[in-house]
């Protein structure tokens, strides 16, 4: 990055000019940018989020994705952008409502308003070119929109973005996002050097000129805000005493795969899993790794299994529809005891469902989607940091237990960006290549320990180890065996391993008091929102705790004991469940959320659930309401 333009740098903070300006001091804020898709709002938000994290704020960013595939410009359903919640402390979820929004037109803003995404006192910076647009229809829409918005206490500030950007570029459609970034930079007093560096990173594949132009636009936004705004928002930053990194969940999965020493990612493109393979495709070769884009999901998992059988631990990454296609092969991997890691970045289903949006509805498919009895491991990272480490854990378990390990993340983790402590890499995570030493005479292909079901891995190249791995029922010599004893034994051995793994796990920690009126149980990406809701409930004097499960198969030990200490237990999940008071719904026919179903079967405790499928992460405020509602229904109902 050679270009350096002179502008307000670090030294300009707290200038005399700020005197007379209102300084709003808060411990956290949620800022968002929305535009038509293609106007670059997502990029702006990503840069802003990364800068906040780098300055030492806790942060969590969420993409705002249009509700339609090809939305027309200026439509309520077409808003695209990014929402950044950041604060002095660690931020664990996307929060409730936006406090400050930069909107490129009044229609996308109206869309956000109608979704109830904005706080009642939100500050709105709105492009005002539409007010005087030559098209009278547009002028009319503007008027009507502003009227609708006036029903709330929003503070609307009109910004001549188009006009200002035209001073620098001919086509402000490409560049307004950087102007907006400048607005944020001023309002939140961000470090401009860091912003420039982040712009350089974002446009690293583009020319020097593109970089320079974007910096100019950003600086123009900054200058405009400086000259025109009578407030600034101060969110103290605290530099962490440990080194931190910031990335999204899919990047964390990719890096975790590298850290775990995996060398083959065999995949077929599908949203929202794809960006992990994009990331890996970019960097994997430098680590000696290959991203194989197969002809379909079935082939993708087949190639991974072939590679694992041959001595590597490969992984495949997919989302819902792809998971369905892989199921037959997953059962085979369990049957032949080939280690395999499968990442499922969950999205809304069934069918093509909500391809870009979050849901936690693949849990049962992940666990039981294979035909026959196919015991395997399912785990779910709850944070972006855990996405990274889950790959290391998954590989180790897959190899030690010769089984399939599924890692369930979701669209929220995949695209969310959050800072976390920099992992301390360890070469031992990668494990030595498999042994190619000869097999002693008389040692069967599956030398199952009758107590644990564990057996030693065997790969081609090992002298005297020849055998045919088969998906047919087989005995310890891997010979096809249909007799009752052989099949029952095989099933028992494969199942026993999972019990052995369960013995190595710790009971989940209870967040809050160890006993009380209500225990909220969650899994996956909802952890931060649930814990925040629990904190708020406790602050209101409610006796609520939570516990978050990392392992779904096997379930962690001690659940029954923990549940017993609470009057009521309720899961909170992003998958469908019937509400108890819905028409036709009785306690008997009620379809419960997926983890809830598992926990009821597992513990025989009358676990309740509150679940939603909005295609969005859960808001802590909504979870809090659910908690209050369930408690009001009376303990033990």
């Amino acid at each position, binding site marked *: 990055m050679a270009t350096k333009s002179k502008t307000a740098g670090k030294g300009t903070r707290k200038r005399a000019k700020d005197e007379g300006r209102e300084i709003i001091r808060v411990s956290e804020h949620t800022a968002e940018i929305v535009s038509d898709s293609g106007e670059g709002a997502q990029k702006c938000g990503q840069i802003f989020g990364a800068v906040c994290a780098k300055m030492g704020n806790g942060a969590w960013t969420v993409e705002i994705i249009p509700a339609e595939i090809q939305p027309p410009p200026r439509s309520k359903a077409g808003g695209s952008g990014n929402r950044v919640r950041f604060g002095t402390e660690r931020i664990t979820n996307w929060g409730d409502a936006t406090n400050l929004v930069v909107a490129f037109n009044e229609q996308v803003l109206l869309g956000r308003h109608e979704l109830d995404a904005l706080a009642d006192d939100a500050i709105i910076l709105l492009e005002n070119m539409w007010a005087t647009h030559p098209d009278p229809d547009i002028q009319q829409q503007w008027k009507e929109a502003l009227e609708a918005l006036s029903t709330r206490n929003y503070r609307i500030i009109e910004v001549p973005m188009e006009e200002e950007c035209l001073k620098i570029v001919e086509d402000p459609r490409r560049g307004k996002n950087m102007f907006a970034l400048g607005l944020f930079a001023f309002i939140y007093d961000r470090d401009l050097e860091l912003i420039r560096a982040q712009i350089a990173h974002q446009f690293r594949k583009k020319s020097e000129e593109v970089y320079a132009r974007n910096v100019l636009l950003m600086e123009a936004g900054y200058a405009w805000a400086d000259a025109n705004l009578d407030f600034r928002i101060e969110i103290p930053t605290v530099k962490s005493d440990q080194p*931190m990194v910031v990335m999204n969940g899919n990047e964390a999965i990719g890096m975790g795969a590298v850290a775990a020493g995996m060398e*083959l990612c065999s995949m077929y493109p599908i949203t929202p899993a794809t960006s992990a393979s994009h990331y890996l495709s970019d960097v994997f070769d430098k680590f000696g790794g*290959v991203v194989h884009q197969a002809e379909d999901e079935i082939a993708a998992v*087949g190639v991974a299994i*072939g590679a694992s059988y*041959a001595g590597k631990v*490969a992984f495949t990454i997919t989302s819902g529809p792809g998971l369905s296609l892989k199921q037959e092969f997953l059962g085979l991997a369990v049957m032949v005891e080939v280690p395999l890691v499968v990442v499922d970045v969950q999205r809304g289903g069934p069918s093509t469902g909500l391809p870009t949006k979050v849901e936690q509805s693949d849990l049962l498919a992940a666990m039981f989607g294979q035909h026959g009895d196919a015991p395997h491991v399912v785990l779910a990272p709850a944070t972006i940091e855990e996405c990274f480490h889950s790959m290391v854990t998954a590989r180790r378990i897959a190899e030690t237990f010769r089984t399939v390990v599924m890692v369930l993340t979701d669209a929220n983790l995949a695209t969310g960006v959050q*800072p976390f402590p920099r992992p301390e890499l360890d070469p031992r995570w990668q494990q030595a290549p498999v042994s190619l030493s000869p097999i002693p005479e008389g040692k069967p292909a599956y030398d199952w320990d009758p107590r644990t079901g564990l057996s030693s891995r065997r790969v*081609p190249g090992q002298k005297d180890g020849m055998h*045919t791995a088969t998906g047919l029922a087989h005995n310890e010599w891997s010979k096809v065996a249909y007799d009752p004893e052989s099949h029952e034994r095989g099933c028992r051995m494969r199942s026993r391993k999972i019990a052995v793994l369960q013995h190595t796990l710790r009971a989940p920690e209870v967040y809050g008091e160890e006993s009380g009126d209500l225990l909220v149980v969650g899994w996956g990406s909802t952890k931060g929102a649930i814990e925040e809701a629990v904190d708020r409930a406790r602050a209101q004097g409610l006796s609520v705790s939570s516990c978050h499960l990392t392992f779904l198969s096997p379930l962690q030990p001690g659940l029954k004991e923990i549940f017993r200490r609470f009057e009521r237990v309720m899961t909170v999940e992003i998958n469908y469940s019937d509400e108890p008071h819905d028409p036709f719904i009785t306690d008997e026919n009620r379809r419960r959320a997926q983890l809830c179903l598992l926990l009821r079967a597992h513990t025989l405790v009358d676990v309740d659930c509150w679940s939603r499928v909005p295609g969005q992460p859960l808001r802590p405020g909504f979870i809090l309401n659910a908690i209050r509602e369930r408690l009001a229904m009376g303990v033990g109902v």
Partner: protein
Amino acid sequence: MTHYGCSLLSCGVIDERTFEMDDYQGAVARWCPGCGDHSILTAVQRLLEEEQLKPEETVFVSGIGCSSRFPHYLNTYGFHGLHGRALPVATGVKLERPELNVFVVMGDGDCCSIGAGHWIHATRYNVDMVALLLDNNMYGLTKGQTSPTTPLHFPSNTQPRGTYLEALNPVQATLGVTNASFVAQTAEWIPAHLYETLKAAYHHKGFSFVRILQRCPVYTASVYDEAVRKPDVIEMMVHDDGIYLPDLDQIYKQKIVHNPKDIDGARRLAEVTERVRLGVFYRNEALPRYEDLRRLPAHTAEERVRLLSEELDRYAV
């Protein structure tokens, strides 16, 4: 991808073993008496012996079907996986372990129906392996259902009044795929030809697709009847760069000289006629192989940690 290479397998250790046919014998084959798969198994064992392939460095991958039981009957490594999905597994094996000898055994339902997508793409990847299509024109294991290669009007249990569609031509289909590098056809009832074809396939560097006409005495006994009884139905494609067995001249008088380099000629000859053509249709070793294109230098764990640490720097706060 890293590869264990010869260093871990054999270098430094002088391997003085020699292998007899018996050394490749696995479980006793359980195919029906008269099933063509028996003679294919014998020819394959002969090839393994002739080439002295180390049993532990040889992997047979199959799908599901009568023919896919093949690996069980060999004393090599085997992977008997899913119906139609042998090729992806074999691709994974070879990607990670290019030094292994990889063979794939598929039935016609396996390869040309449920696994047809993989067949096209495996042909295009051109990974160095031998793919055998054991074509009995019928689903054997599931007891007599129409397959894509069942001849027109031939009855089956699912189409008792005869099939409705013209049979798919596997040779022509394979020759139509970009990057196809070796395509041959042989018949199990001509052991010498079968053996030579397998040998040529084995020696070809790339994806060697061999369709083996295979009799099924139970469901399609009559299909190859004429070809078996009347040698004149068979036309041998001969060439110095292909297969030429002068000993067979006495029986198989119909011959055509075909240079396996000639793709247009190959496609023309692959068209269905009254004649059954055996020999190498096409061979081209100059085509790129996927495993070579994707091969990367090996990395140690420490190197990876160092590089990943640099990568993390880019994301440092």
